[in-house]
């Protein structure tokens, strides 16, 4: 580990489609890139015991989470020939239908980005201390568990 403070991956609230669009546009100057791949995690309105999820409220052990995101980023650059990679995760309330996770990888070739994106998303789900509280329409809640 280096002494460098890891980048902050978290954004307050949902990740907007404008933000995602602008992120894509910013890469037009990087002309060695031939392939982008994007994962967008969206909050599902799951029905559990007859109650519908209206939002997820995210909290995190932020320092450890940012350090883990950094480790995942380093490992992905080591494993795959990537030109660049961006990860954003929401904190706070994200309503059903809104985006809570945005992972964006770019490379000169397509095969690399297919593999890299799956690796990064699976690592995020398994390694990063983020906690989702599913809020139901009647204001009761339960803690989400990743499958």
């Amino acid at each position, binding site marked *: 580990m280096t002494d460098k403070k890891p980048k902050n991956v978290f954004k307050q609230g949902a990740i907007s489609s404008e933000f995602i669009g602008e992120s894509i546009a910013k890469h037009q100057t990087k002309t060695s890139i031939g392939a982008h791949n994007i994962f967008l995690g969206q909050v599902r309105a799951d029905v559990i015991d007859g109650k519908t999820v209206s939002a997820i409220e995210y909290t995190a052990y932020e320092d450890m989470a940012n350090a883990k995101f950094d480790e995942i980023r380093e490992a992905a650059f080591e494993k795959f020939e990537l030109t660049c990679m961006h990860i954003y995760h929401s904190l706070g309330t994200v309503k059903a239908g809104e985006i809570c996770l945005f992972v964006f990888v770019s490379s000169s070739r397509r095969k690399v980005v297919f593999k890299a994106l799956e690796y990064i998303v699976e690592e995020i789900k398994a390694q990063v201390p*983020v906690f989702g509280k599913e809020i139901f329409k009647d204001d009761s809640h339960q803690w989400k568990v990743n499958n």
Partner: protein
Amino acid sequence: MTINIKYFGLIAEVTQHEEETMNVSGRFISDLLEALYSKYPDLKNKDFQVAQNQELVSENTELSGQELALLPPFSGG
């Protein structure tokens, strides 16, 4: 040894705090857990991992005095 402990998610609901400072007499994570179980009996039935200085540790790990965190199952993304 005085240790700062952070609680998250479901665990913070059980302890009713997000953070506290505790005095622990033993040397290991297991000693701290014993102290926490007697203070918060409901913790025994909960699924969580312990991080020390932001790394996951086992019950047999020695307490270093650095920050501890009780982390329920991760559910990011």
